[in-house]
């Protein structure tokens, strides 16, 4: 029992340390694949030795020393006596325990940041960025990544191999982007983190524990990023959004595994600690960013729900205003639809309907199935059943999802029976 406990501890340490180790080693060997192998070796050695010798006081430093020794051995063994070898040999006397501590405490933040900029590099596809980030920064196994995205393990393994190859052939540098480039690159990093979080948060299918794992890892990465880039408003905004959304994780699914919508969730079970952390992060973002960026605005909307003691007490005028701000910085029809519903809640459906009708005038949205279905809902509330029926039927003809189609046709039929009520 004791053995398995140590194993679990070692496992946890490995997961926590592997990103830092990989980041530190890439700086030394300039190769993602090699750095990963060296860290793997060091972890295997730890797994062999620690159960007997006990876990060292500073496991991170121990692993780093071991991995760096392996790196030097490796370079010697492969007789790579080029400039690189000289460089490393030169810096060898650097690796005293104290220096390593220093590296771990100080510069390591920068190394991690360089690493995440590398794994989220624009030369990689979105899928590759996510897979590589989860592998290298979160220390997830290919099997775990595969299970969380419901794809075959071989697909993920291949994706990661290809991504590493691309980084190599494209000679992607292990460095911080600066100036104008930093802004663009940071937004790519945030999107990868948000995508990871959302994948874990929104999907209802899949393994029971692997989904929250994605959320946790995304949140952890976000917190680290906020720690090392404290002046970026949107980083705090994203962290705030993820903290607040995470506070509802436990209440989003019932005991049968069915999703529970916000209104029916047991608010008493929302995690207050996460909400407080989220509100604090949102506060930091507000102090830095004017006007607020999209992540901060989404966090602010989420905060409105988190702060309402009951669903009826939700501050809808505020939510409507926040959606309006969001539609300015990140315009999209789905933002407008949310705004229309928030306005209907705040001031009545006839006001929401005006927004939808403005959208309806947009020819590019003629195939957007959510438009008629939301319009239908507003019309029902206004008692305009005949028009609502037409909208639901239109929405039904647009969706390719059978279940959704059946639901919409049901609603249309419902409206029809109400229209005939009127005449008799």
């Amino acid at each position, binding site marked *: 029992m004791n053995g398995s406990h140590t194993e679990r501890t070692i496992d946890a340490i490995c997961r926590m340390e592997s990103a830092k180790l990989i980041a530190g080693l890439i700086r030394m060997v300039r190769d993602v694949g090699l750095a990963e192998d060296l860290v793997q070796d060091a972890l295997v050695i730890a797994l062999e030795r620690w159960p007997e010798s006990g876990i060292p006081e500073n496991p991170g430093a121990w692993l780093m020393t071991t991995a760096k020794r392996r790196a030097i051995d490796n370079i010697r063994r492969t007789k790579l006596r080029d400039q690189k070898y000289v460089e490393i040999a030169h810096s060898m006397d650097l690796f005293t325990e104290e220096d390593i501590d220093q590296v771990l405490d100080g510069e390591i933040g920068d190394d991690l940041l360089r690493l995440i900029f590398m794994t989220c590099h624009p030369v990689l596809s979105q*899928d590759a960025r996510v897979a590589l980030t989860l592998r290298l920064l979160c220390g997830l196994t290919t099997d775990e990544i595969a299970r969380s995205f419901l794809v075959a393990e071989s697909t993920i393994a291949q994706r990661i191999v290809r991504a590493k190859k691309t980084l190599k052939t494209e000679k992607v540098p292990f460095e911080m982007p600066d100036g104008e480039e930093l802004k663009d690159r940071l937004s790519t990093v945030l999107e990868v983190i948000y*995508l990871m979080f*959302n994948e874990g948060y929104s999907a209802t299918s899949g393994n029971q524990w692997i989904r929250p794992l994605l959320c946790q890892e995304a949140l952890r990465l976000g917190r680290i990023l906020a720690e090392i880039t404290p002046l970026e408003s949107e980083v705090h905004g994203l962290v705030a959004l993820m903290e607040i959304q995470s506070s509802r994780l436990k209440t989003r699914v019932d005991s049968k595994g069915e999703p529970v919508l916000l209104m029916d969730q047991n608010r008493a079970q929302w995690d207050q600690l996460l909400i407080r952390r989220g509100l604090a992060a949102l506060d930091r973002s507000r102090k830095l960013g004017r006007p607020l960026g999209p992540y901060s605005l*989404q966090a602010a909307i989420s905060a409105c729900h988190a702060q309402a003691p009951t669903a009826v007490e939700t501050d809808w005028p505020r939510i409507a205003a926040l959606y309006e701000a969001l539609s300015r910085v990140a315009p999209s029809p789905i933002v407008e639809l949310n705004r229309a519903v928030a306005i209907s809640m705040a001031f009545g459906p006839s006001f929401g309907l005006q927004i939808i009708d403005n959208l309806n005038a947009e020819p590019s949205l003629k195939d957007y199935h959510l438009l008629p279905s939301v319009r239908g809902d507003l019309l029902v509330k206004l008692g305009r059943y005949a028009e609502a029926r037409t909208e639901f039927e239109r929405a039904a003809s647009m969706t390719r999802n059978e279940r959704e189609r059946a639901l919409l046709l049901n609603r249309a039929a419902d409206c029809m029976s109400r229209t005939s009520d009127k005449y008799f």
Partner: protein
Amino acid sequence: MRFMLIVKSTVYSEAGVYHSREYNNATITYKQFLVKAGALLAAEVLQPSSSGIRITYPPHRGEPRVQVGPFSADKTLIAEFTLIDVRTDDEELNWALRMPVPAGLGEFEIEIRRLEENSDSLREPRIQALESDLQDQLYMFKKNTKSSTSFNLNNRGV
């Protein structure tokens, strides 16, 4: 599931030889069947490669090379394609096997390729999150019976 049924070029198609009336009629009937089954997305015939242009990029960046057709009629050239949308896995093979074949024009090859479907992970996370917010909000809106009276909408007296 969407599939592309690709008809490969032959020396005849490359030479611009017209198909027989029988074959054309068979093709029309075939497409009608596809339409009735709700499977047809697109079906097009390409001009011979003599009207084609090829752009090649060297492996490590650099200027593109632009070539004009005709290109050699090996198995890489496409003469026609039919894009179909089917529900089950064997269906596309059945459809491909029912495709009419022109008589007396040498070997005829059809290739079936599945289209890459957009996986969930490729969706933009913000849109996905906002769609789920909309679901939450709409549900609250529909359940919100109190407000509809306070908005003076209930004076229909039903």
